[in-house]
C-alpha cells in the first residue's frame, strides 16, 4: 500500500509571533511560526476595516523551536533568525518581489532533533543586531557574531562557545547595552551540587561578548527566585534604563548589574485558590517616544501593564497595573498603528485596538508598597473587568486543538461535512467544516419573473466598475443601473420585449443585445444598427470585439468589429447539426482579434475553429468527449512572475467544457496552432455545469454552476477547483462596483443575488456552535440527525457554583473592589445581565478551582438547527471520557448511549481516582433527549467503549470486559485482564476485537462465543503511545502516536487465514505465549511522521464519487488526508518527484526532509504531497530541470498530476 499525504487545512495555530519591517521601513508585517509553518502576514486597510492578509506561508518540514528578528542598524529591513530541529541556525530574508523567503545562512552547529543538549531552544538577539546567542535546555550555548562586509552584505562568523556543564537553562535574552559589548542574560541552574533533592538555586547570569577579543565570558551571576521562568529585555542606551525584567512565579523583578533588585508582586485574581501561583507566559514591549511600558500576560489571561520609574542612574520603582483580560496567548505583538495582535494558545487569535494605556485608576502593585510578611510578600488582589483599554476589531480562526472529528453527511448534501470538536474550556466549539469557499451575500432582490440570464455591462471598457445589470426573461429584457441603489432603466435603446441571448459591450463603448431574431447594436451616441436573421439564433458567443452566432439548423455566422466601430459579417459556416454551445477566446493583449472559436456539438465533439482572416472557419482540432457538451468557456491565463501569488505562471489558454453528465473537462489550447492537449476531468455534480467567467484578484476565473457553484482559480501557482458554499445557481456574471470590487451577480429562481467570495485558498468554510467545556468525544446518532458530545474540564466549578459565585461577585462589585470605576457602571446599568455578559467566560476563562475538581456534561446537538436539545451536567466531581451508542440483544429500549465516567480523577503525584462508572442512557423524543437508565460502578477509568455482538465492550484500565444490559446494572459476561497498561481504544469487526493500549499499540483479539473467552492472538512489537486509531479493514489498523507519527499495522495474510481457519482460533498457541506477548506479531506497512500529534482518524471520502482516504486532525488544528495511490505508475512518478524535490528544493531551515519524515521511525510507503506541491513555487528553470529527469515530462504535466491527485481527495 502506498499513500499520498496532503494537508487539507494547514494549522493556523501560532507559537511565535514577531512584528517587524520585513519588507521595508514603511510597512510593518507580523512573522508567525507554528511548529512547522512559517508565515508572514500584513495588516491591510480595506473598506471593512483592517484585515490580515497572508503574504506567504511556507512549510519548513522541520520543527521551528525559536524565532527572532535581526534588526541591523542602518538597514531598512529586518532579517529573520530561526532555530529548528535541523541542527542549524538559519538566517532568512523576505524577498517581496519574488515573494519568497531567501536563505542567507544555514549554519550547522550540532546534531538534529529537539534534544536536551542541542542548542536551538532559546534564541537571543542583541538589540543592535550584532550577535545572536543560541542555547539548549542544558549546558550548550553558542554565540554567533554578525558583521557586514562593506557595510552591506551580512556575514556570519564561526560560533563562540559559552557552555557550562551541569547547568539547566530556563531562558536567554539579549540585554540592551547600546553600543557597548553585547550582553546576554540567562536564567541558569547548576545541578551538579543539587542532583539529590533540594539545594538547587537559579541564577541570573550575564554573558558578555567581547567584540575586540572575540570571546564570551561570564560577567556576572546572582541568585534569583527559584520560580523564575522568563526574562524581558528592558530597552537601554538612550531609550531606557537597560537591564532585564525577571518574571518569576508571583513576582516581577527588575535586575541589572550593580543595581538593587526592584521587586513587585503580580496582582492575583481574588477568586484564585491559594495553591495556584501566577506565572507570566507572554510579554511584549510598548515603546513610544514619551513612554515605555511592558504588557505581561499571566497564565490566566490577565494582562498587566508594567512600568518603570527611573532617573539617569537608577530605577526607583516598578509598577504593575491590571490592564485588561484576553484569552491566554502564546505570543503578543504591538503594531505601530496601535494594534495589539494576540496569538492565542488555543482557539481564535485576536486583533485589538489599543484605545488607552491604563491612565484610569485600577488595581496596581508597586515595588514601593511591597510589604514583606512571614510567608513571603503580601499579595495584591483584583477582580477582572470588561475591556477598558483594548477593543477587539478582528479575529483569525484557528481550530487548535482538534479533539475529535467525525465525517458524516448529516445535512444530506452532495459531499459530507466534517464535524470537528475543537478548543478548550469556555472557548471550545463544535465546528462544521464543509469543503468549499465561504460566500458572503451582499444583496438579494426579487424579480418580476423567472429570469433566463444575467449579464453586467460597463459604460466604457476602461471603466473600473460595472454600470448596468441586464436580466433576460422568457419574453422581456430588463436593464438595471447600478448606483447607490439598483434602478430600472427604460430608455436604454434595448429591445425590452424580447428575451436576450447575450448582452455585451462591443468595442470601446457600444453595446450589443443579441436576441433570437437578430443583433441590436447600440452605438455610444444612441444610433442603433440592426441585423435581422431569418432563422432563429440559438447560441451566441462574444468577446467584446468578435461575435459568433449559431442559427437553428446549424449555421455559424461570424461578425467582427471594423475600424469604424461597425459590426460586419465576415464569414458563414455550415455545421452538420445544431450547435450545443460555443465560445470565443478573449482577445489577447495587443492583438486585434482572438483566433480561436470553440464549438460543441450534440455528437459529443468539441471543435476549435480558426478565426484568422487567412483561414477563417478552418477546423484546427477536434476533441471528443464522453457526453454532449452543455457549456464552453475559453479562459486565458496571463503570464506572471512573483506578484501576489509569488509564483511563476506561463501564459496559456484553457478550454473548459461542462458536459451534460456533470463532468467538467479542462484542456490546454496551444496558443499558436490551436491543438488541444492535456485534458483533465472532474465530476462536479449531478447537473450539467454552466460555465461563466468571474474576476478573482484581478484575474479571470472560472465559475461553474452545477448542482453547486464551483470556482476555478489560481492560488499559489496551483489551479484550484473549489465548491462555493452557496445554493444552486442558474446563471451568473461577474460584478464590480464601488461597494464590492470583485463580486458575482447570479440568479436562482426569481431572485437576483449579489455575493462576494472570501478567503480564497481556504479548503473549508466553517460554522461554529459553542460548547461549555473541553470537548472529549463525539458520536453521531444513527438516525443521522443528532450528535452527542461529551465535555469535561479539570479544575473548574460546576455551573451552579459559578452562578452563585457570579452573584457574589456582583454584590462585591457594588462595594468598589476595583476602585471607583465599577461603582459608576453599576449605577448606569442595574441590569445584572449586562455585567455578567461583559465578563464572558470566553474572554476571561472559568474561575480556577482546585485541580481535582471536575465538571462535565453530555450534550445532544442538532447540527442542522445548531441547537442543543439536551444538556446533562454530571454531578459530584464526575467527568465523562468515553461514549458510544450501543444496541443490546435485549431490544427493550432500542438504541442506548453508554458513557464512561470517572470520579475524582487526579494526575499528580500519581494517577488516581475515587471510582469509575458506566452510565447507560436511553434516547427520548426521537433522539433529542437522554434519560438515565442506570449507572454501573467499575474499578477503573472506562476510556474506551464499543458495541460488540449485542453487548458492550469496555476498556477499563488494563481490563477489557464484555457487559450485557441488566435491569439495574450492567452484567459482566467475560473479561481479559492481560493488557499491558490502559486501554484507550476498542474497535470490532465480526468476532475480532482490536484493542489499542495507551503505550503498547494495538492488540488483535478474538472472541470465542462457545467458550466465552477473549484472547489476544497478535500484537505489535513497537511501543506506540496511541492517541488515535481507526480500523481500515479486517486485518489492518491505522494508529497515531503522541509523537506525531501515523502508522498502519497489518496481520500477515497467512496468519490471519490460519487464525480464521483454525478451529481453536490459534488459541493453543496463545496459551504458550512468551514474555507476556501474543504469539503473532503484526507488520508495520505504513509509517509517516506528520510532525504534529494526531488526535483523530477516520476513513472516509470527502468528495462525490471519490475513493476513501484517511482524514486526520491534529492538536495544532490541522486537517490532513492520506490517499492510497493505486497505480504503480503513479507511485513511481510521485516517489521520483519527491526525491527530486528533496534534492532541488531542500526545506527552508536546513532540515533533511527524509530525516524529518522519519523522525521517530523510518518513513515507509508514504509520499509527502506537501513537498510535491511546492513544485509550483519553484522557478521555471528548476521546474524544467525536474520535469526533464522525470521521463522528459513537461512542468505542466507534473502540475496536472498534482492537481489530479488533490482532486481525488478534496
Amino acid at each position, binding site marked *: 500500500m502506498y499513500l499520498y499525504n496532503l494537508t487539507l487545512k494547514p494549522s493556523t495555530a501560532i507559537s511565535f509571533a514577531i512584528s517587524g519591517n520585513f519588507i521595508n521601513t514603511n510597512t510593518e508585517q507580523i512573522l508567525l511560526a507554528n511548529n512547522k509553518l512559517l508565515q508572514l502576514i500584513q495588516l491591510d486597510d480595506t473598506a471593512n476595516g483592517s484585515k490580515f492578509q497572508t503574504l506567504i506561508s511556507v512549510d519548513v518540514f522541520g520543527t521551528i523551536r525559536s524565532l527572532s528578528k535581526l534588526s541591523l542598524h542602518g538597514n531598512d529591513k529586518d532579517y529573520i533568525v530561526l532555530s529548528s530541529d535541523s541542527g542549524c541556525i538559519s538566517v532568512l530574508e523576505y524577498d517581496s518581489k519574488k515573494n519568497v523567503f531567501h536563505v542567507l545562512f544555514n549554519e550547522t552547529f550540532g546534531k538534529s532533533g*529537539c534534544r536536551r543538549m542541542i542548542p536551538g531552544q532559546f534564541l537571543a538577539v542583541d538589540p543592535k543586531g550584532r550577535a545572536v546567542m543560541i542555547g539548549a535546555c542544558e549546558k550548550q550555548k553558542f554565540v554567533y557574531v554578525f558583521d557586514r562586509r562593506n557595510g552591506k552584505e551580512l556575514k556570519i562568523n564561526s560560533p563562540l562557545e559559552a557552555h557550562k556543564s551541569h547547568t*539547566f537553562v530556563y531562558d536567554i535574552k539579549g540585554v540592551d547595552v547600546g553600543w557597548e559589548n553585547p550582553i546576554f542574560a540567562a536564567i541558569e541552574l547548576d545541578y551538579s551540587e543539587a542532583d539529590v533533592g533540594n539545594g538547587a538555586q537559579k541564577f541570573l547570569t550575564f554573558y558578555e561578548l567581547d567584540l575586540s577579543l572575540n570571546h564570551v565570558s561570564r560577567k556576572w551571576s546572582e541568585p534569583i527566585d527559584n520560580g523564575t521562568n522568563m526574562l524581558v529585555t528592558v530597552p537601554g542606551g538612550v531609550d531606557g534604563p537597560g537591564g532585564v525584567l525577571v518574571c518569576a512565579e508571583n513576582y516581577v523583578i527588575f535586575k541589572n548589574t550593580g543595581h538593587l533588585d526592584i521587586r513587585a508582586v503580580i496582582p492575583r485574581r481574588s477568586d484564585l485558590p491559594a495553591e495556584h501561583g501566577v506565572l507570566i507566559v507572554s510579554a511584549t514591549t510598548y515603546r513610544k517616544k514619551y513612554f515605555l511600558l511592558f504588557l505581561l500576560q499571566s497564565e490566566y489571561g490577565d494582562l498587566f501593564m508594567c512600568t518603570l520609574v527611573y532617573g539617569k542612574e537608577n530605577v526607583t520603582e516598578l509598577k504593575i497595573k491590571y490592564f485588561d483580560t484576553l484569552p491566554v496567548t502564546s505570543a503578543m505583538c504591538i503594531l505601530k498603528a496601535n494594534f495589539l495582535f494576540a496569538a492565542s494558545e*488555543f482557539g481564535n487569535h485576536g486583533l485589538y485596538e489599543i484605545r488607552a494605556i491604563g491612565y484610569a485608576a485600577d488595581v496596581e502593585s508597586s515595588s514601593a508598597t511591597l510589604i514583606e510578611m512571614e510567608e513571603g510578600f503580601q499579595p495584591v488582589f483584583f477582580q477582572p473587568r470588561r475591556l477598558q483599554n483594548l477593543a477587539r476589531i478582528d479575529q483569525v480562526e484557528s481550530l487548535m486543538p482538534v479533539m475529535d472529528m467525525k465525517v458524516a453527511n448529516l445535512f444530506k448534501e452532495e459531499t459530507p461535512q466534517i464535524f470537528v470538536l475543537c478548543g478548550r474550556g469556555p472557548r471550545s466549539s463544535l465546528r462544521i467544516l464543509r469543503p468549499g469557499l465561504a460566500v458572503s451575500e451582499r444583496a438579494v432582490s426579487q424579480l418580476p419573473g423567472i429570469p433566463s440570464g444575467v449579464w453586467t455591462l460597463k459604460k466604457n471598457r476602461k471603466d473600473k466598475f460595472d454600470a448596468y445589470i441586464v436580466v433576460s426573461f422568457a419574453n422581456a429584457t430588463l436593464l438595471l443601473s447600478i448606483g447607490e441603489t439598483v434602478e430600472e432603466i427604460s430608455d436604454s435603446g434595448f429591445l425590452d420585449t424580447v428575451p436576450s441571448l447575450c448582452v455585451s459591450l462591443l468595442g470601446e463603448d457600444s453595446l450589443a443585445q443579441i436576441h433570437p431574431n437578430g443583433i441590436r447594436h447600440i452605438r455610444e451616441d444612441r444610433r442603433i444598427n440592426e441585423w435581422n436573421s431569418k432563422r432563429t439564433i440559438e447560441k451566441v458567443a462574444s468577446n467584446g470585439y468578435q461575435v459568433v452566432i449559431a442559427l437553428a439548423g446549424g449555421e455559424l455566422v461570424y461578425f467582427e468589429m471594423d475600424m469604424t466601430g461597425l459590426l460586419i459579417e465576415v464569414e458563414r459556416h455550415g455545421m452538420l447539426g445544431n450547435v450545443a454551445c460555443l465560445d470565443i477566446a478573449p482577445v489577447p493583449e495587443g492583438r486585434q482579434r482572438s483566433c480561436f472559436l470553440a464549438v460543441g456539438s450534440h455528437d459529443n465533439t468539441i471543435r476549435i475553429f480558426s478565426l484568422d482572416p487567412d483561414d477563417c472557419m478552418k477546423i484546427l482540432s477536434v476533441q471528443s468527449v464522453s457526453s454532449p457538451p452543455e457549456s464552453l468557456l475559453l479562459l486565458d491565463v496571463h503570464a506572471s512572475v512573483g506578484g501576489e501569488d509569488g509564483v511563476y505562471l506561463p501564459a496559456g489558454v484553457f478550454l473548459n467544457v461542462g458536459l451534460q453528465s456533470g463532468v467538467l473537462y479542462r484542456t490546454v489550447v496551444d496558443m499558436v496552432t490551436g491543438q488541444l492537449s492535456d485534458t483533465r476531468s472532474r465530476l462536479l455534480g449531478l447537473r450539467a455545469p454552466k460555465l461563466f467567467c468571474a474576476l478573482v484578484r484581478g484575474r479571470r476565473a472560472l465559475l461553474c454552476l452545477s448542482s453547486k457553484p464551483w470556482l476555478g482559480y489560481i492560488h499559489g501557482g496551483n489551479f484550484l477547483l473549489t465548491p462555493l458554499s452557496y445554493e444552486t445557481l442558474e446563471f451568473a456574471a461577474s460584478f464590480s462596483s464601488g461597494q464590492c470590487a470583485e463580486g458575482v451577480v447570479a440568479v436562482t429562481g426569481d431572485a437576483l443575488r449579489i455575493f462576494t467570495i472570501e478567503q480564497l485558498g481556504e479548503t473549508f468554510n466553517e460554522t461554529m456552535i459553542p460548547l461549555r467545556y473541553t470537548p472529549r468525544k463525539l458520536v453521531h446518532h444513527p438516525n443521522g440527525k443528532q450528535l452527542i458530545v461529551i465535555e469535561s474540564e479539570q479544575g473548574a466549578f460546576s455551573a451552579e457554583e459559578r452562578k452563585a459565585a457570579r452573584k457574589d461577585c456582583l454584590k462585591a462589585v457594588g462595594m468598589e473592589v476595583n476602585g471607583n470605576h465599577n461603582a459608576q457602571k453599576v449605577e448606569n446599568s442595574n441590569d445584572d445581565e449586562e455585567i455578567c455578559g461583559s465578563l464572558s467566560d470566553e474572554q476571561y476563562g472559568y474561575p480556577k478551582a482546585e485541580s481535582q475538581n471536575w465538571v462535565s456534561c453530555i450534550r445532544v446537538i442538532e447540527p442542522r438547527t445548531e441547537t442543543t436539545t439536551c444538556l446533562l451536567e454530571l454531578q459530584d466531581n464526575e467527568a465523562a471520557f468515553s461514549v458510544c451508542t450501543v444496541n443490546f440483544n435485549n431490544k427493550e429500549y432500542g438504541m442506548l448511549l453508554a458513557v464512561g465516567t470517572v470520579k475524582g480523577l487526579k494526575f499528580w503525584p500519581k494517577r488516581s481516582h475515587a471510582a469509575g462508572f458506566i452510565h447507560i442512557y436511553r434516547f427520548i423524543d426521537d433522539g433529542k433527549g437522554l434519560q438515565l437508565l442506570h449507572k454501573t460502578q467499575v474499578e477503573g477509568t472506562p476510556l474506551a467503549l464499543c458495541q460488540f455482538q449485542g453487548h458492550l465492550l469496555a476498556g477499563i484500565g488494563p481490563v477489557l470486559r464484555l457487559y450485557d444490559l441488566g435491569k439495574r446494572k450492567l452484567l459482566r459476561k467475560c473479561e481479559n485482564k492481560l493488557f499491558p497498561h490502559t486501554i484507550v481504544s476498542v474497535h470490532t469487526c465480526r468476532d475480532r476485537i482490536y484493542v489499542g493500549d495507551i503505550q503498547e499499540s494495538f492488540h488483535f483479539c478474538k472472541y470465542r462465543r462457545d467458550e466465552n473467552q477473549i484472547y489476544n492472538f497478535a500484537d505489535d512489537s513497537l511501543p506506540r503511545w496511541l492517541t488515535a486509531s481507526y480500523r481500515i479493514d479486517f486485518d489492518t489498523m491505522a494508529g497515531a502516536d503522541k509523537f506525531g507519527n501515523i502508522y498502519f499495522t497489518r496481520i500477515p495474510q497467512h496468519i490471519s487465514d490460519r487464525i480464521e481457519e483454525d478451529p481453536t482460533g490459534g488459541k493453543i498457541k496463545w496459551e504458550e505465549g512468551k514474555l507476556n506477548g501474543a504469539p503473532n506479531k503484526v507488520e508495520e506497512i505504513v509509517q509517516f511522521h506528520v510532525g504534529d500529534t494526531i488526535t483523530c482518524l477516520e476513513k472516509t471520502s470527502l468528495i462525490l464519487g471519490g475513493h476513501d482516504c484517511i482524514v486526520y486532525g491534529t492538536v495544532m488544528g490541522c486537517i490532513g488526508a492520506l490517499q492510497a495511490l493505486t497505480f504503480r505508475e503513479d507511485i513511481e512518478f510521485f516517489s521520483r518527484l519527491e526525491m527530486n524535490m528533496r534534492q532541488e528544493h531542500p526545506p527552508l531551515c536546513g532540515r533533511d526532509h527524509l530525516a524529518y519524515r522519519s523522525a521517530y521511525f523510518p518513513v515507509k510507503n508514504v509520499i509527502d504531497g506537501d513537498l510535491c506541491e511546492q513544485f509550483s513555487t519553484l522557478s521555471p528553470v528548476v521546474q524544467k530541470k525536474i520535469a526533464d529527469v522525470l521521463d522528459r515530462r513537461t512542468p505542466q504535466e507534473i502540475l496536472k498530476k498534482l492537481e489530479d491527485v488533490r482532486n481525488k481527495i478534496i
Partner: protein
Amino acid sequence: MQASDRFNINSQLEHLQAKYVGTGHADLNRFEWAVNIQRDSYASYVGHYPMLAFFALAENESIGRERYNFMQVPFGTAFPNEEFFV
C-alpha cells in the same frame, strides 16, 4: 600520565561522557539512568510544541505553565527519592 593513556579506551569513554551528557557507563545505577531518561524526555516535550499543547490540554493548564512545570521537573521535586532506585 603517559602519552599513550590519552588514547586508551577508558579515557576516550570518559571524554565522550563528559562531552555527551547522558551517555551511560558500566557503573550507572538505576537512579542515574532514570534521571537521564527523564531529562531527555522533558527536554523533548519542551522542544515539541504540539506535545506541549497535548499535555497542557490533558492537565488543563496554559502552555506557558506546562513548559515551566516540565523544566522544573528535572531538578527534583516531583521525583521519587534515590533509595527507591538503588
